[in-house]
């Protein structure tokens, strides 16, 4: 978790060329350069490359096995279900204890991928959309290997594709095909799709939002809060192009909005400072909103290796597990 915060404190646009090694990872833990990765045509191949590389590295991780078993004993109190009494312990100690286990059910995860026009921008040789799709594919593949149910939703100003969360043969394939399908998105409108998602996904689970969040954030808090209120875990992957962060254009030009088509004469040298300030401000607001709602926020510049994103995902899940057990928000169950 300390790695998380360290990474978040770094300047948004100052993404290191070589990402931080994972904590505890050896020096030979190589991350795949996204530019190289993106040359792989098949999305599933890309995802596998990342996940398998990640898994190899994971073996050296001190956090192996997040499928948690026994957690604690607790003194029986009136009203506890007698089925969860540890009779053996009672036999030994003549005391009533309730034995508590972590729930190790399969995870239901929905990946929400922003397919709006603004995602088609990219200054690194590939677009934010490609990066986002790869990220989504990676997560789906990873979760599938864990036998968790994965679903997919793509949206612009409304939900365009919807694959419900399942774990069954061929489902991953369908997700991959859906992710590879080009989508003529329109403007980014987070409010509408989020509201719709909250209505559609009724079972508790995990919601991964992959978006550039280039939309007014006034209603973001309201709708994310609504989803959170329905018991969904939310992780936000904020996909950003390095050019958006640094605005390192050097020639004045007519800047054209991909979504609206509006043009604006902009001289980068003059506007850069102001732009960076405003953009940073926007990111900070999004981050603050997520913080407030207990949502994990991961910033993903497109030149950042995807493994790090996957690692962020896992660490967020882990921290969420600890947090939720502390807050008691997650359902605890005693296994008989």
């Amino acid at each position, binding site marked *: 978790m300390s790695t998380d915060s360290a990474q978040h404190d770094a300047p948004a646009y100052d993404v290191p060329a070589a990402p931080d090694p994972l904590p505890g990872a050896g020096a030979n833990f190589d991350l795949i350069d996204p530019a190289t990765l993106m040359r792989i045509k098949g999305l599933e191949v890309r995802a596998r490359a990342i996940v398998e590389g990640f898994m190899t590295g994971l073996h050296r991780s001190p956090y192996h096995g997040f499928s948690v078993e026994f957690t604690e004993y607790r003194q029986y109190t009136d009203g506890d279900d007698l089925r969860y009494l540890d009779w053996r312990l009672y036999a030994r100690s003549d005391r009533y204890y309730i034995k508590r286990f972590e729930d190790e059910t399969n995870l239901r995860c929905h990946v929400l991928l922003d397919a709006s026009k*603004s*995602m*088609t*921008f*990219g*200054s690194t*040789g*590939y*677009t*934010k959309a*490609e990066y986002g799709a790869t990220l989504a594919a990676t997560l789906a593949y990873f979760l599938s290997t864990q036998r968790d149910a994965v679903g997919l939703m793509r949206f612009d100003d409304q939900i365009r594709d919807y694959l419900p969360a399942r774990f069954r043969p061929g489902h991953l394939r369908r997700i991959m095909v859906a992710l590879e399908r080009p989508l003529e998105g329109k403007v980014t409108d987070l409010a509408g799709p989020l509201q719709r998602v909250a209505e559609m996904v009724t079972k508790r689970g995990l919601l991964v939002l992959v978006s*550039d969040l*280039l939309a*007014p954030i006034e209603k973001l808090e309201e709708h994310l809060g609504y989803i959170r209120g329905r018991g969904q875990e939310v992780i936000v992957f904020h996909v950003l*192009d390095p*050019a*958006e962060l640094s605005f390192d*254009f*050097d*020639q*004045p*030009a*007519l*800047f*054209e*909005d*991909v*979504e*609206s088509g*509006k*043009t*604006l*004469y*902009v*001289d980068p*040298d*003059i*506007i850069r400072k*102001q*732009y960076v300030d*405003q*953009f940073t401000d*926007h990111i900070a607001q999004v981050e603050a909103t997520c913080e407030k709602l207990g949502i994990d926020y991961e910033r993903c510049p497109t030149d950042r290796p995807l493994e790090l994103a996957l690692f962020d995902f896992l660490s967020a899940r882990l921290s969420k597990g600890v947090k939720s057990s502390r807050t008691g928000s997650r359902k605890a169950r005693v296994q008989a």
Partner: protein
Amino acid sequence: MSFLAPLFLAAAAAVSLPILFHLIRRTPRGRQIFSSLMFLQPSPPRLTKKKRLENWPLLLLRVLALVLLALAFARPFLRGASEADRDALLGRSTVVLIDTSASMRRAGVWEDAMQQANELIDEAGPGDRLAVFAFDRDVRELVTFEQWSQAPPDDRAALAREAVDDLSPSWRATDLGAALVRASDTLEELAVARGRDKAMGPRRVVLISDAQHGATTDALRGYDWRKDVTLELATVASERAGNASAQWVRHDDSAEDKALRLRVTNAPGSATEQFELRWRRAGEADDEPDPITSTVYVPPGESRVVKAPPAAMRDSTSGGASGGKIVRVEVAGDDHDFDNDAWRAAPQARRATVVYIGGEDANDPTQGLFFLQRAYPTTERLNVRVEAVRGEVALTLDGPFAPGSGPGGAQNSPVEMVVVTEPMNEAQVKTLRAFVEKGHTALVVLSDDAVATTAAQLLGLEDLSTEPVAPPQDALLVGIDFDHPVFAPLAEAQFSDFSKVRFARYHRVDMESIEAKMPKSRALARFDTAGDDPALIEAPLGRGHVVILTSTWRQRDSQLALSTKFVPMMLALLERSMGVVETTDTYHVGDRVPLVARAGEGEAARDDAKTKKDDATEGTVDGKDRRDEESTDQSNGSRVDEARLTVTAPDGRTFKLGPGATHFDQADMPGVYAVNSEDATDPPWRFAVNLDPRESDVTPVSADLFESLGVTLDRDDPEAAAAEAKRQADLLAVELEQQHKIWRWLIVAALAVLGVETWLAGRYSRLPAAPSAAPDAAVSTGTT
């Protein structure tokens, strides 16, 4: 160098534009796709550094072209070249109008006016133009602009002052409107002569007048007063406002009360309300120890009509004619005495004899004579006797009616008209014919066919066939010629109804046979029977006329004598026959007094009479008298023929009028004038001339009146004066600029520069682009 439109020089600031354009980097042609413009603001175009100004020659040419254009639009001109003209251009043109009407005779007013006039003349500078007009009823040019300009500059003031010094107030009325129009027109002629588009100094009319309320301003109504001609009022006023005046009220001959009546008017601002009237007889001196006086009370602003006191009327010696010998009434007790006298010519009754040829009983109401005798009542001005002649007696129609030829003698009563109702013998016809040819009228009444023979003889026809007609229904008069003097008094709509005049019998006259011989004869009225038989025929004979009535006014023949039309018709016939304009009308100072109209000049006289009728505005002369004059004007001056007339003015001056004189124009002061014919057989005819009553209305008018008539007043407004001065200076500038026309050369130069610039720019554009130019394609769009 000055500029006509210096504001356009500000356009020279536009030179900053090409400089700016040259400083601005060329706009990148590239477009940069970006994910969102949410966080972008438009950037102002960036300028290159100063030392990087590109294309210096082009820039200079463009700047030069702009500067030249701005200069051309500012329309430069060179001042000072014609300073000498400037004075002439900007000098003031002034028409000084000096009122010389009778009201200027009030104490102190004239002196004040003279002083103002002299001050104005002294004020005139070398560049100014001055004209001096005097006006009362008419405008007189004392010094014209032409005379002023032609005189040496040093002598101009003397010239004008001399003309002004000779002036003195007249007795005439004030036509202020005509004077102002004349002055304005004169200024306008001056401007037109100079050229309408050229600069001209201020033009003004200075009115030195008492601007009295009674002044006529009608001429200004409908006159388009030019806005740049200002009227400056130099009003001279008497300190005392009170004024009373007297005018005679027209006497009605038929009124029971024969007393003279006088209207006394008191001015609105008057302090006095009670006045003494002194009724003076002819020849009575002003210091008559015991004048006939009466007192009248008139509140300020009102008028009263007073009757002559019995003492004045008792004085009468003229056989019932009222007023006696009163010739003047003086109003005493008011502030101003210029209009205190009302003059009056003692009426002189005119005697006339109408000879009636017919043997009838004068007391038989079924016969014509009975009515004719009663048709001529004795009035103040006319005393008519009707003498009946019967049988074949010798007629003496020349001079006083000869006693013995009829009943009763008549002294001093000339025969003026003959009415024929019976056949006459040849000698009588010859006499009558000679009488008519002198200008008199003979009325032939066709009482039977025999009279027709007499009529034929009188007209010189061989025969006049007549045929008695008794229409089954009574005949009425139609086709009446109301323009003819006989019917003219009845021309008004309320009098022109002849439908009650019925004729039971008449004689059908062959009008064609008369017209064949006498083409100028005509039917003045016809009957409404089949054939349109003439009822009243007029045939000129010599200078006179023969009028034939085809019926009679006897009761068995017609109701003419019983109708209201009879007396006016008979009176009109007689007055036409008498021929002399003789009236006791009161004239106003400056009026043309008609004396006599000779044969053949009737039309001219009628025109004059009509003009006078148009001028008539006051009730003292009413319409009926005008018509009387008209009718008498048209007839022939039988009595005064070629006689030379002498008019004696009230102050003793005598005017000898030539033989052709029809009017007397020199009535330039109030009083009684006497007209004597040279042979002096008749007593002198007198007429009175009075002040125009409007002249007595001396209340000053306010300046608003002039403004309401559209006159631009000079209100001594310094702002307006400054604005006018500026306007003139601008006009002068325009004129100078139009002379120089520098702007044309500037435009030509600008076009030339632009031509060079185009050529140069074309050359530059054909050159290969500099390698440093516009590296804007370097920005990648970044989309895939």
